[in-house]
């Protein structure tokens, strides 16, 4: 294997990891910080992508340059609204009952998937990236490389830094972190905890929607991606450690690299590699690489 090929494969792994990070960071926020087992996270991804596409397509046909960006914002907004609706109507009053939340959200994900199938059909769809980030750019050591994949890394870094600043440098972040440790005391301090939860859920769901539009630009959007991205998010968060942004980033990089390196070296068995990483991490460090022991 030449050096150029090795570098290309590593870059492929990192750009894929960027997409996984964007989706999994929302999952980590909801699952890790709020202890809400949201098995409908993949559905939020898919709703964001499909609704974003429905907004994007007519604008694209009119050939306006901002079509993709409007689709992106619409996808995030709809996912956030759906997330808030879920938290407000069903998940909020079963806080702390993890099995019940898991079952309810699985039910929601089945209903959402069937509704999307009924409304959008089974035809695959794909966003076309705006001209500014389409085509190929020159990367030293690799040569021409798809610009959109580099853009993914940029978005992931922005999401990571933004979340870190939000959680560690703002009052809302302080409340979220306090809520993780002791909801009752936080409530007694005069903070409206249910509202904080709704803010977190909206943010996590919006990130799933963001991932949905970015993911549907890089890969085809079809029925079934909800399950795939839920599984990836679970693995990333379990490997990285719940509720840690750094951990999610590490988990995403491991999973993304494993997938691409595996595909290059032993394609038939590459699927297993991801789960081998999960097994090893769970065996040696059950709380995840950056997770706090409880």
């Amino acid at each position: 294997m030449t050096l150029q090929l090795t570098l290309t494969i590593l870059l492929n792994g990192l750009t894929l990891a960027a997409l996984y990070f964007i989706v999994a960071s929302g999952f980590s926020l909801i699952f890790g910080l709020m202890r809400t087992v949201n098995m409908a996270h993949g559905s939020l991804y898919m709703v964001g992508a499909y609704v974003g596409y429905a907004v994007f397509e007519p604008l694209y046909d009119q050939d306006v340059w901002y079509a993709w960006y409007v689709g992106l914002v619409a996808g995030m907004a709809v996912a956030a609204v759906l997330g808030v609706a879920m938290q407000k109507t069903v998940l909020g009053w079963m806080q702390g009952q993890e099995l019940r939340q898991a079952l309810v959200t699985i039910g929601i994900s089945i209903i959402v998937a069937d509704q999307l199938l009924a409304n959008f059909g089974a035809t695959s769809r794909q966003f076309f990236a705006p001209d500014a980030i389409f085509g190929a750019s020159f990367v030293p050591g690799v040569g021409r490389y798809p610009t959109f994949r580099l853009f993914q890394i940029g978005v992931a870094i922005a999401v990571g830094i933004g979340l870190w600043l939000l959680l560690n440098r703002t009052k809302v972040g302080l409340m979220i972190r306090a809520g993780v440790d002791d909801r009752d005391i936080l409530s007694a301090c005069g903070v409206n905890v249910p509202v904080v939860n709704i803010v977190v859920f909206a943010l996590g769901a919006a990130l799933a929607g963001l991932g949905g539009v970015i993911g549907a630009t890089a890969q085809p959007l079809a029925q079934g991606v909800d399950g795939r991205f839920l599984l990836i998010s679970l693995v990333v968060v379990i490997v990285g450690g719940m509720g840690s942004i750094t951990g999610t980033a590490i988990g995403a990089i491991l999973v993304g690299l494993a997938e691409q390196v595996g595909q290059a070296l032993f394609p038939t068995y590459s699927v297993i590699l991801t789960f081998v990483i999960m097994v090893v991490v769970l065996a040696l460090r059950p709380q995840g690489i950056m997770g706090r022991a409880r």
Partner: protein
Amino acid sequence: MTIRVSRRRALQGAGALAVAAATLKAPAIAQNAPIRIGSVATLEGPFATGGQDAYRAMEMLFQAENMTIGGRRIEWIRESSNAQADVALARARKLIEQDNVDFIIGPLSGAEGIALKDYSATLNGKTIINGGSGAADTTLRNPSRNFFRFNTDGTQWMAGLGTYVRRTLNVSEVTVVAGDYAFPYAQVFGFSLEFCRLGGKANYLWAPLGTTDFASQIAQIPRSSGALVVVHGGTDGLAFMTQYAQAGGSLPLIGGSIMADATMMSARGPHRRLMVGMVSGGPVADVIDDPQWNDFVARYKRMPGAFPSPSIHAVNFATNTMAAILALKQVNGDLSGGQAAFQRALQGLKFKAPTGAEVSLDHNRHAISDVFLNRIEERNGQPTTVAFQRATQINQTLGVPEAQFLALGAPSRNNPGCVAAS
């Protein structure tokens, strides 16, 4: 554990349910009828579009019979799988054991077909007629007396393509990118058999079904390749082609039979630009100069949600469904006596498939029929497959004597059929 629900919460919930009931789409409910026909196609997973289209074609044919054959009403029970063998098998068992169907038409994908063939061998007085699956070994090795296939298989569909690439395009080395499961094995085998016999050299890159990011595989395509043979389908094919376009790929493209399909070409994306000019082999094309085909397409287009032209899956399911209807008519809807008369009628059928190709069965209950070489052309702003060559009455071993063909071994990722002429 007790759940306390306040009255306000309950009212909110009831209101939400009422809104949901008014806006959600309800599933259809089947009617009762005496001939019970089950079917398995992929309404989930990578071939969801194809499965939907297959059922569209079946519905059209049953409707043309007024849902009645030999005075008996047809009750059609549709099941769905996701292109995985275990799922297809579970659904087929459900159809036979719980729904008590008389026979099954299906499945759609390669490995599923092998699983249902094995299952059919364990049944007594029941029949499975293939839907669209095209793995060679479903009928070639260890066939089942209860399994009939009226569509040609993936190996047959490549008849003539290897010769075309080696002789007409004068390409001496190709790279084959293919799905790592039974159907692409059959296709790659059919292509390699001809191509390598004429002195061609082939490199192979396999990827599991359901792969969405092919970037690292695209980076591995050797620079010495003169053409790229793509044997992916459904969303896998779409993902591969999109990413190949994004990576700036420019090799001449040769396609497997489910690449140049309505499923791929109805999707919008950067892959379309690359696909114009692609040559592929298969049992069907959008444009075939044949009155039977034009009539079938015209009827198909009247179905709700139809593509501009029926997909390969629709045509395969239609061919097999036509066979079932013809045989049922011959026995006047009589399925008694362990379906012996029905199975004899199936075996003896000779009819014209929707494409106008003559179909009959060999001793393994597998189709002998015509295969087309197609080129993608831009017509009315739409990429369209146009048949430019027809190979008539291709059998399952591509004209090689059966014993000799079997001695080559079963197609697999380690046995892609690339043997130089001896």
